[in-house]
Structures are given as structure tokens and as C-alpha cells.
């Protein structure tokens, strides 16, 4: 079981990183978007490894099914494919910032002594998430409602923005 998880992790991590790199490095923007889909999908796989099954499904549903498709749609609507996705003037500084950030994070992660709990949570997470979201006292009912309002606002905003006048 452990070996299986390890193998899956390494494969998934490699694909995730490769596809994320492809997203930012490819000049063909449509290919970049397709690699973004792959990246999202492998991240869903990583969620499965982390035994967050509900989130894995939600990841595929929301990121792959909705967000990635929207992005591809936007690419077609803007017809920027001929120009591709070139890098700007900030390429080198951006690279520096990225590497610096990465180094800091790796240092922090490695140097921190994490209080890891070893036993594996093997219960279905769906009802637990529901409990956490909607339970009275320490639940997230208000944020949930606000999220709903946010989505509504975003939908209306998007419609208003792109409406043909």
C-alpha cells in the first residue's frame, strides 16, 4: 500500500510539475491550456493520494470541467493564438523571484519540525465536510452564504462586462 502510494505520488508529482512548466513555457497558448487541464487532473490524483476523495471529484468537476473549459473558450474568443504567449520584459526578475520563493519555502518546509499524525484517516470525507460546513457552532455557514453571494455577484458581473451593447 505504501509503495503504491509512493509510486503514484512520484508519477503524479512529475506530471504535475511538467505540465505546470509547460503552461508557463509553451508559446502555443492552446497547448498551454491543455496542459493546464492535465495539471488540474493530476492534482486531483494527488488529492486522491491524500485520501480527500470528495475534493478530488470537486477538483475535476470545477477546475477541469468548468474553469479550464472557460479558459479555453476565452482563448478561442480572443484569438490570440497567432501571437502565442510570449514572455515579457520581466522574465529574468520573475525567474529570480520564483526561485527565491521556492528556496525559501523549501528551507522552511525542511527546517520545520512538523507534528505529523501517523494514523491514516480512512473515513469518507463527504459527510465530514458537510458537518464542518453546516454545523451550528464552529461551522462555516456564514462563509458558505457569502461564497454563494460572491458567485452570484461574479456571474452577474461577468454577464454585465461581456454583454454586447
Amino acid at each position, binding site marked *: 500500500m505504501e509503495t503504491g502510494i509512493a509510486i503514484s505520488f512520484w508519477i503524479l508529482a512529475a506530471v504535475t510539475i511538467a505540465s*505546470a512548466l509547460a*503552461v508557463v513555457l509553451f508559446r502555443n*497558448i492552446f497547448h498551454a491550456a491543455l496542459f493546464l487541464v492535465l495539471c488540474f487532473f493530476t492534482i486531483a490524483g494527488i488529492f486522491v493520494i*491524500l485520501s480527500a476523495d470528495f475534493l478530488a471529484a470537486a477538483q475535476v468537476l470545477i477546475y477541469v470541467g468548468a474553469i479550464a473549459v472557460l479558459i479555453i473558450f476565452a482563448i478561442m474568443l480572443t484569438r490570440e493564438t497567432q501571437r502565442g*504567449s510570449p514572455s515579457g520584459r520581466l522574465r529574468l526578475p520573475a525567474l529570480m523571484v520564483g526561485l527565491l520563493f521556492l528556496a525559501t519555502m523549501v528551507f522552511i518546509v525542511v527546517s520545520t519540525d512538523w507534528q505529523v499524525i501517523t494514523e491514516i484517516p480512512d473515513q469518507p470525507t463527504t459527510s465530514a465536510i458537510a458537518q464542518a460546513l453546516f454545523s451550528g457552532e464552529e461551522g462555516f455557514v456564514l462563509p458558505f452564504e457569502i461564497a454563494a453571494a460572491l458567485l452570484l455577484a*461574479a456571474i452577474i458581473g461577468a454577464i454585465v462586462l461581456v454583454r454586447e451593447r
Partner: protein
Amino acid sequence: MVVGLEHFLILSAILFSIGLYGALAKRNAVVILMSIEIMLNAVNISMVAFWRYIAPALMTGQVFVIFIMVVAAAEVAVGLAIIIAIYRSRETVDAEQIDLMKW
């Protein structure tokens, strides 16, 4: 080799840095949006990893991920709407050419 919390966190950090680089370096607004999505996903991974290895009893990590997804969806909807609106009036989505606050 046993996979632990650090692995997921470092994966998350790498993804975040890639997203950061893309968001800063790229000129196409849609690619910038895509990079931001990668960053959000990196955060999601670390959230779930923390939940899994630090506090499996509390579902807060997962709940946070859900909220991040909601925000990401809203962000993409509005962001793409803005990009398309800009494209229709300026016929470009090059972030370096969209530098006017008003036109």
C-alpha cells in the same frame, strides 16, 4: 521511500513558484490567469496535505479548499469577462499593452 508531508509541501511550493513565474513573466493576460490558477492549486495541495498529516480530525483544511475553489471559479469568470471585454475594445490581451487605466 515513504511519502510524507514534506513531499507534498515541496510539490506545492514548486507549483506555486511556477505559477508565480508565469504570472510575472507572461504577457498574455489569459496565461497570467492560468498561472494564477496554478498558484491557487498549489495552495490547495498544501491545505489538503496539512489536513491529512496534521489535523485529520478537523475538516477545516478541506473546507478551505472548497472556498478557494469557489473563489477561483468566481475569479476566472470575472477575469475572463474582463479579458474578453478588453480584447473587444483593444483587440489585444497583451498585458504590457493594457497599461492605460482609462481610454
